[in-house]
Every structure is written in C-alpha cells, then in structure tokens.
C-alpha cells in the first residue's frame, strides 16, 4: 500500500521574532514569515500554489495572496486543534504535493497571543458555536473549569495518582527547556535559565500545574515551504525529507477534556500518532536522535514519551529525572530550541522549525550527527506528529 514516506521535503523556513508585543498585525506577521520562507527556498512568490493554515488564524490565505501578490492557489486547507494542528498542516501539505495537486505549498502559523492583538476569521467567530465547543462550554465553565490549565490538570492529577509521581519529577522538563532557550538568541527566555528549586518555588496556578509548567504566549509567526522530494533537490537549501506525518483523534476525544474514557491518565492520540509515524517511516524509537515534544504543559512531555514508545508506561517522569536523558548530549535531547516553555508558544510550529534546523545542521543547540528528528504535538487532544530526516 503506498504511503507518503519521503514523497515530500521542507525546503524553506521563514520566521519573525518572538516577542511580547509584535507591534504588527497577524497578517503582517504572516506576510513577513511567508515571504522569508519563499526567499530562503530560492523560490518566487508566483511559484507558490498552495497554502495551509490553522482554522483560527486571523491571517487567511486569500488575504495573504492579495498582500504578497501571489498568482493562484490550487490547494488550500486548514486544520484545528492547537498544537495538534501544526504537524497536521504539514501532512496536508505533503498530501497536496504528493498527489500532484500543488507544486509548492506554504505552511504557516501566526499568533498575537501575548499582545492579544488577535484577528478573528469568520471561522473563529463560528468556532464557539461548533458542536464540540458547545459541549465543552456547557459543562465546564459554569463550575469554574475555564482555562486549559485546569482542564489538563484533571488528567495530569489522575496520571500522578496512578503512577505515584512526586512533585519535583515534572520539573526537569522546564529546567532543560529553559537551559536550551538560554542559549538561543531567538528564544523569549534567552539567557534566563532556571533551576529545579526555581521550579519548586514557582506558584501553583491550578494545583497541580505550576507557573513554570506552563507555556509562554508570544507574538510571532513561522512559515515553511513544502514541495516534492524530486523538486527539492534542485532548490537552494539542503532538503529535509518528511519520512512520515500523522494525525489522530481517538473515540472519546475532547480538546483537553477527555474525561469520559475508561482511563484518562494517558494520551491515546499521541500513541496512535507514534504507531503510525514509525510504521510509515519504517524506523523505531531507538533510531530517533532528537525529539521536539509538545511542552505546552510540562507534565505532558513524559506522558508523550511513554505513548511514543521512548520509555515504558509510567516511566516517563523517571526518564526525565535530573534531565540527564533529555538535555543536550543525553540519550534523547528534547526541545533543543527551548520549546513552548522556553522559546515561546507557537502551537508546536517552532518545534517543527527546530527539527528542520537540526536536520540541516544549523540549529543553535545542534545535536551532533542527528539524522532523524521526531515532532509530537497535540498532547491532551487530537494529536499529530512528524518524522524528518536529512
């Protein structure tokens, strides 16, 4: 049965700065990062015939087309569900080029989450009326379960209960992410590492989630250009091949609030994504040299490592303990640019961009001789992921 393995490659990346206030509109950020990605790929604006975006992204593809003077889009589409959306978008792009519907597809994501200068699309206006959200809005906010920290907290509490996790064991993930971010000039927490004591002293936002467990919202945008593996060979940058891309939603899934499954202390979507990625790529977890794991909330990282098969069920926190396995030089370096905890929260897009840089050999915190990178996003809801190779 045919798969998408190695059919497409990422050939250009473009980013804006990450800041607390971009002082620009989302459409402006989109134009910046998309034009940068097209230029980096050695392509022209007219070469772009596909664009995929997040459903709630205020910078819609038609407005971008009008602004950058693009010619024609034969392929456009969108995906939802937060951090589970970004790798899903890459899957969309791969399908577009692999099926011959488009030649060069731009994948982008913009956010003004910090300055809150957020532009709404009509989708987002209707987002609140979608049946999934109406369900959530009906039962959770009236009792005070309003924010994602609380929503995911119920799941993480259950995990802690079933596997006897001690309070500080989750803290090594933020420590390592901030360590990596401290060396990354593009990160929001550049030169600001933290220690495990800082973590333990940090405020509880929603017991059991601490302030340092939470991602940092930023303003910024990132884009990449995806094309066929064939075409990639003749372009400017060294191609980064997409060995596998997958997404998953499993029965009983809700966005951050899947409380009605028999067991809620796991991430079945991530598990499915992992199985699919390794099946399509034909590799195993042992072959992965560097991983970019969704760290929107730190406790979700060890949970994902278990689901993806990097360690056994229940052993995630121990795997991350003291940080020796997950920091640079360790068994499985994670979130080498700082991730959502250290670099900034762009819905896992920055994880994908960092994975591309690792494969190109141009990352700030480069893992030596890295050949395969894995990206995992969407922990706690519909999930997605990628395996990239150089």
């Amino acid at each position, binding site marked *: 049965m045919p798969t998408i393995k190695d059919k497409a490659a990422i050939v250009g990346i473009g980013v804006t700065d990450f800041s607390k206030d971009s*002082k*620009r*509109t989302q*459409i*402006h950020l*989109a*134009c*910046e990062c998309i*034009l940068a990605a097209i230029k980096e790929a050695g392509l022209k*604006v007219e070469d772009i015939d596909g664009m995929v975006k997040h459903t709630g992204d205020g910078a819609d593809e038609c*407005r971008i087309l*009008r*602004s*950058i*003077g693009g010619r024609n889009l034969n392929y456009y589409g969108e995906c939802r569900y937060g951090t589970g959306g970004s790798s899903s978008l890459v899957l969309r792009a791969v399908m577009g080029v692999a099926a011959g519907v488009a030649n060069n597809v731009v994948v982008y994501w913009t956010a003004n989450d910090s300055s809150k*200068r957020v*532009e709404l699309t009509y989708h987002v206006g209707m987002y609140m009326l979608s049946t999934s959200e109406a369900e959530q809005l009906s039962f959770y906010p009236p009792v005070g379960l309003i924010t994602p920290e609380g929503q995911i907290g119920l799941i993480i509490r259950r995990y802690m209960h079933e596997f006897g996790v001690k309070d500080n064991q989750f803290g090594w993930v933020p420590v390592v992410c901030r360590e990596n971010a401290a060396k990354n000039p593009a990160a929001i927490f550049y030169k600001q590492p933290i220690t495990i004591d800082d973590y333990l002293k940090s405020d509880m936002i929603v017991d059991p989630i601490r302030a340092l467990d939470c991602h940092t919202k930023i303003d910024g945008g990132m884009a990449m250009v995806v094309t066929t593996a064939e075409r990639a060979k003749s372009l400017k940058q060294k191609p980064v091949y997409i060995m596998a891309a997958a997404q998953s939603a499993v029965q009983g899934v809700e966005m951050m609030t899947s409380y009605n499954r028999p067991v809620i202390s796991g991430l079945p979507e991530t598990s499915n994504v992992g199985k699919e990625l390794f099946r399509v790529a034909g590799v195993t977890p042992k072959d992965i040299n560097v991983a970019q794991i969704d760290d929107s909330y730190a406790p979700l990282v060890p949970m994902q490592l278990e689901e993806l098969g990097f360690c056994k069920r229940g052993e995630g926190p121990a795997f991350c303990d003291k940080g020796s396995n997950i920091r640079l030089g360790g068994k499985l370096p994670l979130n080498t640019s700082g991730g959502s905890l250290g670099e900034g929260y762009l819905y896992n897009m920055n994880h994908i961009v960092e994975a591309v840089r690792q494969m190109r050999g141009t990352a700030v915190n480069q893992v030596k001789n890295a050949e395969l990178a894995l990206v995992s996003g969407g922990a706690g809801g519909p999930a997605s992921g990628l395996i990239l190779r150089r």
Partner: protein
Amino acid sequence: MAVEYFKGIPLIRPLIDLDNQGFWEAVKNHKLVIQRCKDCGTYVHPPRPCCPNCNSFKKVWAPASGKGEIYSYVNITYEKVGYPGMMCPHAVVLVELEEGTRLITNVVDMKPEDIYIGMPVEVVFEDIAPDLTLYKFKKSKGVKAKKGKR
C-alpha cells in the same frame, strides 16, 4: 439628498488595526489617502502589510486627489437587505479613483436612479458621530477622471 440614518441605531464602526490606522486618521481629518509602496510606487488599497507588486514592507500614506468615477453601484430598496441604520432607498457605489484603486462608499445629493457607471465624482467627508467620519462622493462637474497606475 444625503444618505439618511435612523436615529438611535448605531452604525458599525470600521475595524481599525495597525495596518489601516493611517487611512482612518486621515479620513477623520477630512483627507483621503492611499497606501503607496515606497519602493515601487504602486498604490495599494485596501491597506496591506506589504506591496503585492514588489513585496516591500516600506510604505507611505500618499494623498489622493479625491477624484474618480463610478465603477459600479447597487441601489438598496428593500429594508430587510439594507443596513438597519440606513434608510432605504440608498445606493452603495464602487468608485474607481484616479490613482487606480477603488473604494466602496455612498453618493450624496443624488437620487439613486440618477447614478450611472462612469459618472465623475469627487470626495466629500461626513462627520456622522464624534468617533465616526466617513468619506462620501458627490457628482463632480467637468473633465472625466483619468485612470492612474494601479
């Protein structure tokens, strides 16, 4: 006659953001401006972050002559499809300015039936509320407006 509004029904305000702020500030001061690319001179409307012609992010608010011609128009006669704050009948027109860009607007001092495509117009400004000034157009006499670089 001018477009008439129902008292007590607030009109929708334009959505002002960082990219179009300059345009609306000028309108408030009774001036019509068009975004113009600093590098290649292309006029861009509606305002956009970068130039669709050369992709430069450098731009200026160039003063517009205010003259143009009717490119297209509709006459809203049925209240249910019109905007609740405006009395029917009223016409909504698409004006093509001398500079080549187009504006959606209203025509004042004219019956909708008298509007025709190609009619020369020039801009006027209406202070509808303390926080709402709109550009409108009136029929102009004399030479038909010529097309500019788009």
